[in-house]
């Protein structure tokens, strides 16, 4: 069953990747084109997702917003994997137990909601670094997870057996990394993708993330706050696109603690 769910998740992510790749072709209008139609027109054959307060085609905007969201989430996911997962995995084998204080620090940072960390980092840099900030905000949890996994591998009987017969630490680390990437990379990446997407969308919703004209789905939902009760389509379609993306990522991660990186 889990394998089927994973397959569905990856298939969904594949479809989304194709849509993102072809967003300029699939979208009828360029991003942030006002007055394409009447303001707040309901879904119709001409505008399948309706129009927003400024007469923009919501379908085109959702396609462009999805591309921005996916692009930012991809960057954030890479930051999380490198600064969290990879660093945490390697830190266990640092000489003189140097990884232990890092694990402690990551544990402390991990207890702070990633959203607050992301907003703090955006404040310290700029909103252009929202993706990197979201990735870094999710990194502590990814670090602790990878650190603990790596520590259990390093303490396993087969690792001890290898050390007892003179196999160097670097060989063991390389071995563990190769098998970890082969066996767990895709699910870890998918889990991180889901987590950072939630953070990124929320950051944008609060106005700390993406800025016009490059609007992401979070910002689109935020912009639809004023019109939502009169024109549900302005927020519902961006929200559905966001939900579909996060759901696919979580399915690809076998629904394994989707909120954790």
């Amino acid at each position: 069953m889990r394998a089927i769910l994973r397959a569905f998740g990856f298939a969904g992510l594949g479809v989304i990747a194709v849509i993102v790749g072809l967003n300029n072709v699939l979208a009828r209008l360029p991003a942030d084109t006002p007055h394409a139609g009447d303001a707040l027109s309901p879904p119709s054959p001409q505008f399948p997702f309706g129009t927003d307060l400024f007469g923009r085609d919501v379908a085109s905007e959702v396609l462009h917003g999805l591309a921005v969201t996916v692009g930012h989430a991809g960057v954030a996911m890479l930051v999380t994997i490198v600064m969290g997962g990879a660093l945490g995995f390697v830190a266990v084998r640092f000489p003189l137990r140097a990884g232990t204080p890092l694990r402690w620090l990551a544990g402390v940072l991990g207890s702070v909601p990633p959203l607050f960390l992301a907003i703090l980092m955006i404040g310290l840099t700029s909103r252009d670094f929202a993706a990197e900030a979201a990735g870094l905000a999710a990194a502590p949890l990814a670090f602790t997870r990878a650190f603990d996994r790596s520590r259990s591998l390093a303490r396993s009987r087969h690792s001890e057996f290898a050390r007892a017969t003179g196999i160097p630490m670097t060989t063991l680390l390389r071995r563990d990394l190769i098998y970890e990437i082969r066996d767990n990379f895709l699910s870890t990446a998918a889990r991180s993708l889901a987590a950072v997407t939630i953070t990124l969308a929320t950051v944008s919703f609060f106005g700390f993330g993406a800025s016009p004209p490059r609007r992401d789905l979070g910002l689109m939902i935020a912009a639809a706050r004023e019109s939502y009760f009169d024109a549900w389509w302005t927020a519902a379609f961006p929200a559905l696109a966001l939900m579909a993306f996060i759901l696919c990522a979580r399915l690809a991660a076998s629904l394994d603690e989707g909120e954790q990186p």
Partner: protein
Amino acid sequence: MSERRLAISELTVAAAGRAELDCFSLAIDAGETVVLLGEAGCGKEAVMRVLAGAPGEAVSGTLQYGGAQPERAVKIGRTPLRTVYLPSVPAQPLSPHASVASQLIRAIARKLGAPRATARAEFALALERLEGAPPLSAFDKTPAALPRESLAWGLFAAAFAQTPELVLADHALSGLAPTQARQLARALLAEQKRQGFAILYAAMNTQVAAWLGGRVLVMRHGKIVEEGPIARLATAQAHAYTQTFFKAVASASPAYGAPRASGRGQPVLQAYGVECARASAKRPGDGLTFELRRGASLALLGEDGSGRSALVRVLLGLDRPRAGRVVLDAVDVGILAEKMLLRLRRRVAMIAGADDLLDPRMTLWDTVSEPLRAHLKLSRELVANYRDSALKRVGLASLPGDCAVRDLSAFDKRRLQVARAIVGAPLLAVIDEPLRGLDAFAQSVMCDLLRNFRAQEGPAFLVITSDFAVAQALCEEAMVFKDGRVIERGLLADLVRAPKEAQTKALIEATLLPSP
């Protein structure tokens, strides 16, 4: 005339297109012991499975419990007979997440249809009856936190607390030290006398059959090929397969081991007054001093937890000694940094009975090649040559090279460890319970492989075992451990002939077959 407990008639079981049981018939009376003896896959597992209520696919034949009407084996649900399944500890029958006590008490309560409190009291009573069993409070831990023998006591006590009429013991003594296994076998027989239940025991080797007595059925390809008491089967086999089986048992015995002169060559391992930090406190100056020369062999004999593994960890520099000095290949281990220790340990090989010593994710080829790649700058072709040669020697060359270790059988994993040891051309081989949990044929093959390895590569053997037969098959000298201390040492032949300590005698007795 004894009351009939179970009659199996014309039972045939097929799985994956192969007949596991072929018209198997058997009758067991109350108070009787029947041992199904044979190598892995001979059909005894299928008998256990059917009787435990999980027949699997393609089953025919009938089962008759007590005086009830015969039923088709495929439709057996709740049996009219109180049947208890007694698994082995290595089969990991309990969940790793809950305490042993809670799981066993739940099983007793369910079987007796009684409240938990009653089941707990029954379990405690059963434990009290068993001489040598830990108290109930010792089982308030997860299975991983309990010593193997304590877990076995718990499983046995839980089985007895269910007041069974038939005990299905599925290799229940497998994976235990001989002295512990023998003690449990005695407890099983004592309870059988008390409660009058019948025992159907699936065994891989003759030792258990000898302890339990009763009727022994030698099985092969799902059929009984010979039947009789173990004393007769051990000396006069009628069927060709039984002869082969008992020959394999004998080949793992000392008579087949070519004795080598001990103490030849340069010293490989020297210990001077070594005291292990993990061992219990002893008198000052009670440290261990010995020397192991190239090509020599030494057995560290004792029960599990007697301090042998702690000593080996100190000898290999994995742990620091509380006192004393260890010299490995003419280098003092105590003064070396970890990096240099790793270099020194390149000349050490390890072969162990535990199946988790090889990385389950690695492939067959990678497992054997890793020491060569890590230690030597050899070309791919040369690595492949050494690897293939080693795999051929241990009989694994026919397996696909990309086969993952996790998919191998226990026997294949042991042979793979030997192959990995061979390519390393070690000076010292640490061998820890190499035959534990294997059937007679596999034990015979492993013994031959280890002897061949020693004869060709010439490493010194340091063998950790609780089985005198294994020690005799692989070593010339031995030290007997008890509570972290060496209580007796010398040539194995002398120890067997005239043991001085009670512990040594107990270890020897636990591995002897009864005289016919």
